[in-house]
């Protein structure tokens, strides 16, 4: 009987996944569109096909770059410049481990859902901007073009067994100077986080950490005698009176976040936090700005 049921079961599962994909994609596209309105492509001179500007010929320019047709219209000699279209490869990763599949209230999304939404929205934004995007740890080559967002969405949907997935980014063969965006809760011990980030930073790549937390993980709003159990077999903690240790917990969390920030800074990376009860647009904007620092920083200056 098993072998007869198996295709049916997988077909059903695929249907469920397919049913789940479009809303996520739509949400991601919507979030991306809000952000994209404010930021446009890299409008500067560079390697590319599309015309950017004519400028007068300067000594030292190769003769082959002179635009003779333009030059013939006047006495001066012009050089044709094209827009810089050097695409960047960005490697995205989100934590798909069991710890992310949690929410404190049915009104909130799971941390994993929010992380996937942010990841796809960012991917969508990057693809619109002409960048090449890949998912870290899946062995996929960076892809470009807006249509590829669906490929990414399918890859995200195949999240695998939450129990066997590591809570930290794997070491993948990345090209040097690639960009990496890591989204997760980073609640693993700081030493493990440091090791994982260090391995990536040694390639070297530049990256961004986004810590996604549930509001309950920040505030610890429980009361009374509670037995807390980890989702990834970390063990359990029996707290006699949660109110009594709330401030201690918050201090520990702040220390952990400081540690993360320090790890990121040491690798030359950026670090940001995001709570699932906040809008994803803000976090996405932050990530996007962090990825395009040179030009936007210049504009802000």
């Amino acid at each position: 009987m098993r072998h007869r049921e198996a295709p049916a079961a997988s077909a059903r599962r695929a249907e469920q996944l397919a049913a789940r994909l479009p809303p996520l994609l739509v949400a991601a596209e919507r979030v991306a569109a809000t952000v994209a309105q404010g930021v446009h492509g890299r409008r500067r001179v560079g390697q590319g096909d599309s015309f950017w500007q004519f400028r007068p010929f300067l000594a030292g320019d190769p003769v082959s770059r002179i635009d003779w047709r333009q030059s013939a219209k006047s006495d001066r000699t012009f050089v044709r410049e094209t827009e810089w279209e050097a695409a960047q490869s960005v490697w995205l990763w989100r934590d798909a481990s069991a710890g992310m599949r949690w929410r404190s209230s049915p009104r909130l999304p799971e941390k994993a859902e929010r992380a996937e939404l942010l990841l796809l929205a960012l991917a969508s934004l990057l693809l619109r901007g002409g960048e090449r995007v890949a998912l870290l740890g899946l062995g996929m080559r960076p892809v470009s073009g807006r249509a590829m967002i669906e490929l990414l969405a399918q890859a995200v949907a195949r999240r695998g067994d939450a129990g066997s997935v590591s809570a930290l980014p794997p070491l993948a063969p990345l090209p040097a100077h690639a960009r990496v965006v890591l989204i997760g809760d980073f609640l693993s011990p700081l030493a493990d986080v440091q090791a994982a980030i260090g391995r990536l930073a040694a390639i070297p790549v530049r990256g961004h950490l986004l810590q996604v937390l549930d509001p309950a993980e920040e505030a610890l709003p429980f009361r009374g005698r509670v037995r807390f159990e980890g989702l990834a077999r970390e063990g359990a903690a029996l707290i006699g009176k949660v109110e009594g240790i709330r401030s201690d917990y918050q201090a520990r969390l702040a220390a952990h976040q400081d540690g993360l920030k320090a790890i990121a800074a040491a690798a030359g990376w950026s670090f940001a936090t995001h709570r699932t009860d906040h809008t994803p647009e803000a976090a996405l904007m932050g990530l996007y700005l962090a990825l395009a620092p040179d030009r936007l920083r210049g504009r802000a200056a």
Partner: protein
Amino acid sequence: MIEVLAGISFAYPWLLAALALLPVLIWLLRVTPPAPKQQAFPAVRLLFGLEQREESSARTPWWLLLLRMVAAACVILGLARPVLDSGRSLAGSGPLLVVFDDGWASGPEWEARTGALEAALGEAERAGRAVALLTTTPSAQAAPPAVTAVMPAADLRERVAALRPLPWAPDRAAAARALALAGLSEASVLWIADGLAHGEAEGEREFAARLATLGPVTVVAPSAPAPALLAPRSDPGGITARVAAVPAATERRLAVLARTADQRSLARVEIVIPAGAGDAEAEIMLPPEQRNALAALVLEDVASAGAVVLLDERWRRRPVGLIAGAPEGADQPLLGELYYLDRALAPLAELRRGTVRDLLAREIAAIVLADVDTLTPTDLAALSRWVEQGGVLIRFAGPRTAARPDELLPVRLRAGDRQLGGALSWQQPASLAPFPEDSPFAGLAVPDDVHITRQVLAEPALDLSRKTWAKLVDGTPLVTGERRGRGAIVLFHVTANTDWSNLPLSGLFVAMLERLIRLGVGVAAAGDAVLPPLETLDGFGRLGPPPPLASGLAAAAIATTVPSPRHPPGFYGTEAGRAALNLGATLERLAPLPLPAGASVRRLGDTPLARDLRPWLLSTALVLLSLDLLLALWLRGLWRAPVPVRTAPLAAIALLLFATGAPASAQVDPMRAALEPRLAYVVTGSPEVDRVSRAGLIGLTDFVNRRTATNLAEPMGVRPGLDELSFFPLLYWPITSDQPPPDERAIEALNGFMRDGGIIVLDTRDAGLGRGMNAGASAALQRLTRGLAIPELHPVPADHVLTRAFYLLSDFPGRYVGGQTWVQRHEDRANDSVSPVVIGANDWAAAWAVDEAGRNPYATMPGGARQRLLAYRFGVNLVMYALTGNYKGDQVHVPIILERLGQ
């Protein structure tokens, strides 16, 4: 508070010592912290090491503690068995004689009676008095009343627990003799009486006097003794229920329920017994068919054998025999000779079929002969003898009678018949004149839509007008009749079906037959046969298997027998012919009980009974502990409101809609379906297939309506077994491999559909190729048709009517071509030689299907407009075949006819 406590005594007071354990329990509960809430938490690593900080709050809340204490106290108190006592109510001292009436009148308020008895025993037990018991009714073993030995009250409880009300009357004279034998003296007497005098007044008085000699007498009697239902009267319009009761100072309101054998109440009438009156009656008006279904009249809310009157053949309908001239097609719906008779008479009478000899072998009130010309001289003699004795012979004319009239007719018939208003006649169909005054039909309203198109004519005779019971407006006799001996012979000059008139369609037909059946003498009473008990009533008026001692009863004696242990009231005889022995039949009026001199009288139910508090306390404890469980779960966070409040009403509404909507959706509205002819398809449950079927039949209906004179309405989807199929000429049934096989009702419906001339088109939709097109269809076909009366099949022969019913066709393409089409091999004359099934594989519905825009959404294979046109033409032929039968079958012979003409 003190007074209440003073009234409480404990059966096991030493158990109260356990109350001392409560403080220990409190301490135990306080040192054990409640179980923690469980909470999944991803950031648990940050909590490690914080556990030992504060463990202080883990105390059971005080209110939970209080709840548990109260529950524990309730358990301990309940086990100690407290009794809220009423104090002393027994008079005198010395042994107590309890006299207990357990006859039929004790059935109502039985609980109160046994309660009073229990209370008296309990009190005697506490007072240490010995008790003797006398039940006044002969036991079910037919033992006369006897006084038990004087014994401790506790020993008597078993006997008391075994007491049941008995469905016959107490015998107080015998009880008085038992008292004399017992030789009790210096006793106090408690008489729990039923308040009625049952036997001779002398015996009753003697019993009361003898009780008074024993010692102080307390009588516990009901405020109103039980009423009884007397034998009802059978009236033409219904049944008159009669109620008897002891005359009272105020009026009493009772209700009589008319019940069927399966305990459904068909009618309820209120009877008011005026103040001071002893009886009253009320008529229960019921249509005959409902009246015939009655099995008993019951006094509402009075549980006694006297409150039930069982109804038997004496209150039932009469048997009527039906004989058709052509038995083979007699029952065919809408066409058969007996069809309308059966429908008209079934509510009025028990119908029997058979030969004249069979019918006359049993008692029979009337025999209907529908165009019978095959009576043998023996039959004629037997029938005429039976008519003389009181039988009613109702005859219907017809072509056979017109050709060969016999002498068992009220008038002489002229040979042949006359036809009114045919295609070749100037005359209009004739209608009925009002009935003559002396006719049995006098007074029946004559509807003006009854038309007679054809009839047999009577020879003119002097007494013809006297024998004419109904005539047409032109004076022609329509129904003639003659009384012979105690019976009558009646002739309807038309057929019993709609061939000659539409009289059988009219309500007048039913009314006329009803009048005619009442002409006879009726069912003769059974003889002296001994009827065995079949079902008997118990003391609460419930039917059950007869007790072992119940013995048979002579049929003639049933009206006069007084119920007793040997003959308990109930049904006697056999399932087929049951006779009822009723308690009420032997009662005439009810008299109040003569009381012993100097007796103190208490009303039943007045005395506050000693009340056992144990069940109350234990159930309180149970409720409290359940509450505690819920609270504990809530404290641990394991339990929340099971359904969020907002969605609960929606879920309830959805459930309600589902519950009420689901069966409703399965029904085809019969009124809508009956009004116009239309095609139908079997709903397979697969939405895609059902959509194709529907679209296909819509397309075919459209095509048929455009190309032929047929006017079909929009097709319907039907579920065999749930929906009435008889409205549809054709049922299209696509086979899907996952269809559930039809259940028993569906099989019955489909077989009935095929038997009555419907055609089922089974389409395996696989072009005969099996697996590729519609995998599993042939297996499904076998599975689905199991149980259906599919005749022997063969491929459609080249000269089959299906090939020429409208268009001349040589094959039957659908969406596919090449599938073999099968029809019945042997043509069955019964249904006009029409094959009840057509089995094919060409997916015809898909070829016929049209969408909203009128396009054909399914491409034909191999394709082409020609193939689709042929598919439509086959559809037209199919519809014509279903509607006209073998009408075009003659074309088969055309070449031969032409050939002969040529010669």
